């Protein structure tokens, strides 16, 4: 029986990388837990309230989206709508074309990766450069992004130094400080040359139209200081009802993601720069991206749209800790990715139908989630969907159960099996050349068979 793809990937990882992913996720998770419980009287109530706010948002998008749009427009922001990934890419391209712009700098946006914006623009002769240090390294390596918070958790300093040398960013030097300074020198020139700064959006307040962005490196600030146009790609679910809700969610976001009280740069943007300000964008565009989100909203897994992309569920997940982000074959990894990626895949759902099985269903992801998403329940619903739709990938790593189902649904066969089952205690099951059984018994010990005794006891029980 074949291994599940995620197991196969984990097994192929060099031990040092697996160890580094494990240690780093474990350390962040422990710091996060300590910080939350040190700081708040009732962190659980806090995250459950945040979850209720976000659930309100997704169940009221019909009124909150037009409300946010009206506020944004009143603030001088041009609002665009993109039903598909292609539409979102075309909207960015259209805005650049209208300005005669050819150079774009990006501050990490997962949506831009989801819609594959960079290859779209590059094919049309435009430059789109990642500016987050980790994402920049991924881009020059032609790797693909697969981690929400620590983009290069899977690369070591030697690999990075080799990439820098290859790209003409100085002679080989694997000191993290030297690597960072070289990136600083190179990227600040790129910011100054760029026509457009593209960002994502962590939140938009429907009350004021404020767009909130968080980064630690300050790359979003640079993208909004040097170029003359700002484009924000925002998933339609990223709204909050009121400004004060930002206070609650920001208190959770930094702590959950990287165990910081606040991320270093938290930006509240309502529009193009002030007329008195010499730097910054003269025009600002927000592109609301659907790209499958409305299908998720219509599904039984709509709670996943509460996600604020903090990565806490990755850090605590026993599967992610062993496998790392690439194992999930999509932009969103870990427990959140195991739910979101197959759903956003639309018709390609069967391609990712194995991901909901990449979980021990231990519940840790739900316990840490700052917006209380019931991820294990959603994984079970998606396993059911995979099975119901007959996706072959949903069955990888599962022994054929047809014979079992037949036996369990026929009382006579069932009784006979129970009665005869004791035989199994005398059979060396590990030696039976039946691959599904071998696969199961390689990591499990069968308990001693004691079946049938209950019925016997029941039958011989004296009647009252």
């Amino acid at each position, binding site marked *: 029986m074949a291994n599940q793809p995620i197991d196969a990937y984990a097994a192929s990882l060099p031990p040092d990388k697996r160890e580094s992913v494990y240690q780093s996720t474990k350390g962040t998770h422990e710091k996060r837990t300590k910080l939350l419980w040190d700081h708040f009287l009732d962190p659980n109530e806090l995250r459950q309230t945040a979850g209720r706010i976000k659930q309100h948002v997704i169940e*009221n998008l019909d009124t909150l989206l037009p409300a946010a749009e009206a506020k944004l427009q009143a603030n*001088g922001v041009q609002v665009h709508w993109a039903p598909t990934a292609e539409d979102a890419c075309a909207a960015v391209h259209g805005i650049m074309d209208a300005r005669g712009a050819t150079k774009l700098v990006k501050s990490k946006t997962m949506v831009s990766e989801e819609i594959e914006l960079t290859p779209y623009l590059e094919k049309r002769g435009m430059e789109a450069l990642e500016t*987050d240090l980790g994402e920049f390294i991924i881009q020059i390596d032609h790797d693909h992004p697969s981690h929400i918070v620590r983009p290069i958790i899977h690369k070591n300093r030697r690999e990075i130094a080799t990439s820098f040398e290859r790209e003409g960013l100085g002679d080989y030097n694997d000191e993290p400080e030297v690597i*960072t300074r070289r990136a600083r020198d190179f990227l600040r020139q790129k910011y100054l040359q760029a026509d457009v700064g593209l960002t994502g959006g962590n939140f938009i307040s429907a009350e004021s139209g404020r767009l909130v962005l968080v980064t630690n490196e300050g790359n979003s*600030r640079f993208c909004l200081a040097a170029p003359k146009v700002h484009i924000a790609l925002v998933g339609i679910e990223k709204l909050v009802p009121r*400004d004060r809700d930002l206070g609650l969610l920001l208190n959770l976001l930094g702590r959950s993601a990287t165990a910081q009280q606040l991320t270093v740069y938290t930006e509240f943007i309502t529009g193009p*720069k002030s007329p008195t300000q010499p730097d910054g964008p003269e025009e600002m565009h927000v592109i609301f991206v659907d790209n499958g989100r*409305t299908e998720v909203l219509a599904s039984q897994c709509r709670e996943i749209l509460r996600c604020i992309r903090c990565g806490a569920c990755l850090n605590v997940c026993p599967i992610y800790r062993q496998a790392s982000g690439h194992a999930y074959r999509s932009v969103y990894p870990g427990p959140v990715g195991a739910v979101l990626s197959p759903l956003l895949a639309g018709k390609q759902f069967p391609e990712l139908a194995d991901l909901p099985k990449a979980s021990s269903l231990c519940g840790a992801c739900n316990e840490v989630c700052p917006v209380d998403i019931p991820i294990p329940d959603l994984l079970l619903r998606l396993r059911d969907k995979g099975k119901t739709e007959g996706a072959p990938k949903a069955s990888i790593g599962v022994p054929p159960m047809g014979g079992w189902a037949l036996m369990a649904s026929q009382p006579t066969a069932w009784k006979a099996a129970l009665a005869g089952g004791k035989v199994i205690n005398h059979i060396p099951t590990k030696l039976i050349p039946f691959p599904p059984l071998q696969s199961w018994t390689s990591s499990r010990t069968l308990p001693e068979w004691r079946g049938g005794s209950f019925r016997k006891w029941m039958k011989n029980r004296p009647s009252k």
Partner: protein
Amino acid sequence: MSSARDQILKRVNDALAPLPERAPLPDWDRELVHVRETAIPPSTDLWALFSERLKSVNGEPVDDLATLVNLLRENGWLHGYCDPALWPELQSAFDESFTVETDFDRTRVDDYAFGITAVAGAIAETGTLILGDNTTSSRLGALTPWAHIAVVRDAQIHPDILAAINALPEDPNLIFVTGPSKTADVEGILIEGVHGPGRQLALRR
């Protein structure tokens, strides 16, 4: 053919139509986000608390102008940018060994060792500085020099994040800055000064 906007809103409506009821918007009490160790009594010296918090995120509070000028000189930071509105107030403390410009030239971003700008506010609980377009004379002047000095007045300090958000001034771009620019992307090792300032100072005025 319907517009992209109508298309998305129709899909949203169709997706929500079968719901028997919608999740209500919960109200919540600010006690929920009170940070235990910084639950701040009204008489607290907010500058003292802000200073302590700023240090905990690797920022540097500076209590007076003479100390700041000495610190700049000791580090060899002799060329910088200063907000033109602040310069008349600060100028007398800088001798001729300094070159301070009040116009920021974006073609020479690497020439400036320091940038001095005013804040729109600060947050004691987190050691955060708040910069705004209407108060910070140049976004690049506060971002590109190695050392950024934010000029803070006591009355501008809010006790916590929520108080600061509730009092956000009218401004198209407000930014909470909590310490120097930093990354831990390379093997989880903390490096400061990735794109923005490697040193974040706050001068009390």
